[in-house]
C-alpha cells in the first residue's frame, strides 16, 4: 500500500511555531514521525558572553514570550542563590502574582489553540476573549501585555497599589465566571471528547521514563509540580498540584483548565499576602556572581531548569536552560505513531509545545 509523506510544517497553520515533522501515513494512520528542529534556534545561551548578568534577564524573558515572567524569575533566583541575596517578601509575592497571571494567560492561550487544533473555532474565540482580561491586567500593572519585564536581580521594579489590587480581584471574578461558563464545553462536550479522549496516551511509566514535565506529566497521574518545592513566594501559599490519571490529550487539557482556576486562587491568596508596611521592592545588588547553581521552577508547560556557572565576572561563564518542551518532545515522539493524521495537531498541541524555548 502506498504511503503518503506529509511535510508537517515548518510553516503550518495549526503549528504556531516553525517545527517540522515528516509524517508518513498510510490510510491516514501515522506510521512514522520524524521531527526536524532548528527553525527557531538563535543561540541565546551564547549571549552570556555579550551581555552582563543584569542584561541577561531581558534575554531570558525572550527565551519565550509566553511565560517570559517565569523565565526571568528562574534566572533571577539562580543568580540570587549564587550571590546569597535575600529577596524582599513583597517582591516574592509580586513575582508569584505575575507568574500566575502568566500561567493563566498561557494556559488559556493554549486551550484556545487546542480548540483550534480540533476545529472548534468558536471555543477558541471565546477563550481568547477571556484571556484578554489577563493581558489587560499585565499591561496596566507591569507596563506590557505579554513580556512584562518587571524582574531585576534582587526583586521587581513595579508595584501594585490598592486600587489595582481591587481591580484585579474584580477582574478575576469575571474571568472565573466566564471560565465556568465554558467549563462543560471544554471537559464534557461530546465532539471535544471524541477528539481528545484516548488520543496520544502516555502512561504513568512512560511519562516518568521519558522525562515528561508539567501538565504532560501530571496528566499521566504523576504528582509533580515544581511549585511543591515552595520556592520564592510559594512558601506562603496553600498549594496542591492538579493531577489527572488518564494520560491522554483530554487529561492534559483538563489539568490545564483546572490549573487556570487554581491560579486564580493563588493570585487571590498572594494578593492577600502582600505585606502592609514593607515597601521594599528589590534588594541591593553588589558585585558579580560566582560559582555554580541549579534552579528549577514550574512554568506553564512544566519544569524549567537553569544551570549557571560564573566566575566573578560581569559576564557569566555558562548558562544552560532546559525548558519544559525540551523534556516533552521525546514523549511526543512516543505518542504520535499509529494515531490518525487528523489527531496529529491535537496530540502535538497537547504537550503545549513551545519551540522557541526548546531551541533557544
Amino acid at each position, binding site marked *: 500500500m502506498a504511503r503518503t509523506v506529509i511535510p508537517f510544517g515548518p510553516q503550518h497553520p495549526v503549528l504556531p511555531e516553525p517545527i517540522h515533522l515528516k509524517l508518513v501515513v498510510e490510510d491516514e494512520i501515522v506510521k512514522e514521525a520524524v521531527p526536524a528542529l532548528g527553525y527557531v534556534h538563535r543561540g541565546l545561551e551564547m549571549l552570556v558572553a555579550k551581555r552582563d548578568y543584569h542584561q541577561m534577564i531581558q534575554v531570558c524573558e525572550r527565551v519565550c514570550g509566553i511565560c517570559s515572567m517565569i523565565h526571568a524569575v528562574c534566572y533571577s533566583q539562580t543568580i540570587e542563590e549564587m550571590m546569597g541575596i535575600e529577596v524582599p517578601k513583597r517582591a516574592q509575592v509580586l513575582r508569584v502574582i505575575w507568574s500566575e497571571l502568566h500561567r493563566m494567560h498561557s494556559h488559556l492561550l493554549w486551550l484556545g489553540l487546542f480548540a483550534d487544533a480540533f476545529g472548534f473555532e468558536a*471555543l477558541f474565540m471565546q477563550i481568547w476573549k477571556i484571556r484578554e482580561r489577563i493581558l489587560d491586567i499585565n499591561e496596566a500593572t507591569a507596563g506590557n501585555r505579554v513580556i512584562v519585564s518587571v524582574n531585576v536581580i534582587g526583586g521587581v521594579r513595579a508595584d501594585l497599589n490598592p486600587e489595582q489590587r481591587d481591580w484585579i480581584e474584580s477582574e478575576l471574578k469575571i474571568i472565573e465566571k466566564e471560565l465556568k461558563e465554558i467549563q462543560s464545553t471544554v471537559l464534557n462536550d461530546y*465532539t471535544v471528547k471524541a*477528539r481528545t479522549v484516548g488520543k496520544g496516551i502516555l502512561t504513568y511509566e512512560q511519562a516518568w521514563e521519558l522525562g515528561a514535565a508539567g501538565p504532560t506529566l501530571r496528566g499521566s497521574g504523576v504528582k509533580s509540580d515544581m511549585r511543591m518545592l515552595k520556592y520564592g513566594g510559594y512558601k506562603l501559599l496553600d498549594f496542591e498540584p492538579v493531577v489527572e490519571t488518564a494520560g491522554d490529550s483530554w487529561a492534559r487539557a483538563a489539568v490545564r483548565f483546572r490549573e487556570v482556576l487554581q491560579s486564580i486562587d493563588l493570585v487571590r491568596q498572594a494578593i492577600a499576602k502582600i505585606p502592609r508596611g514593607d515597601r521594599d521592592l528589590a534588594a541591593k545588588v553588589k558585585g558579580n556572581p560566582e560559582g555554580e547553581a541549579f534552579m528549577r521552577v514550574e512554568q506553564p508547560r512544566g519544569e524549567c531548569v537553569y544551570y549557571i556557572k560564573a566566575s566573578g565576572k560581569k559576564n557569566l561563564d555558562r548558562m544552560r536552560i532546559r525548558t519544559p518542551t525540551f523534556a516533552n518532545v521525546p514523549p511526543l515522539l512516543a505518542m504520535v505513531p499509529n494515531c490518525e493524521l487528523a489527531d496529529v495537531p491535537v496530540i502535538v498541541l497537547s504537550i503545549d509545545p513551545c519551540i522557541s524555548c526548546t531551541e533557544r
Partner: protein
Amino acid sequence: MKYVILAFIGLVVAPLAGGLLAGIDRRITARLQSRQGPPIRQALYDVLKLFGKEGLALNKWQIICAWVYLIAAALACTLFFLQSDLLLIFFVQAVGAVFLVMGAMAGRSPYSQVGAQRELIQVLTYEPLLVLVFVCMYLAAGSFNISDILAVESPLLAQLPLAYIVLTYILTIKLRKSPFDFSTSHHGHQELVKGVLTEYSGPYLALTEVAHWYETVLLLGVCALFWTTNWLWMAVLLMATYFLELVIDNTMARMTWRWMLKYVWGIGLAMSVVNLIWLYAG
C-alpha cells in the same frame, strides 16, 4: 420566456445570492463568536480580488478541473431553477464534485492529495443519502421532477421530517461546516491547510469559490422544496435551517472522517429507511 427568466435566475442571480449569503454567513458567525465581523459583501470582494491576482496552479489539469467544477455547478443550479429532474441535477453536480477531487489529485502536493481523498469520503457519505432523500421526495410527490414536486398540495416536510434531517447532514457536509469540514475548511487553521483547495490560487481559487456559491444555492433550493406551499414558511424554513447550520458549526469540534463515515452513514441510512418505510406504508 418564463424559462429564460428562470435560467437567468439560476445562472446569474444564484451565485450573487450565494456570495451575499456567504457574507451574511461570515457576519453571523462572527457575531456568534462575539466578534463584529466583516461587511456583508466581503465574500464578493474576496472573489473579485482573487480574479485580479496572479494565477498559480501546478498544471493545466487543475485549471481544467476548476472550470469543470464551476460549469457543472452552474449547470446544476440552472437546471434546478428550470425545474428539471432531481436525479439529473444530482448527477450534474456530481460531475463538479468529481472534478474538484481530480483537480486536487492532479498535482504532486501531499496536502491536496490527502484533501482529495477526504473529499471522496465526503462524497461517499453524502451521495447515497442525497439519493435516498430524492427517492423519499419521489415517493411523496410521485415524480423526480421539480415541477411536479412544486405541484404537491401540502408541504413535503410533513411527510418527510426524517428525510429533512438527513438533508441537514448533507448540507453540513456540503457547506463545509464543522464537524464535517475536514477536506477543506473555511477556517485556515486545519491540519490540511486548505485540503483540496491548497494548490489553487488566484482566479482558479475564485472559480471554485463561485462554484461553491452555486452549490450552496442549489442545496438550499432542495431544502426549499420541502415547503413549497407558502412563500413565508419556505423563507422561515430556509433561514432556520441555515442558522441551525451556523450554530452547529460554532458549537462543535471538527470530527474525523472515520467517525463521519460510521455515524452519518448509520444514522442517515437508518432515518432514510424509516422515512421510506413510512412512505411505503402510508
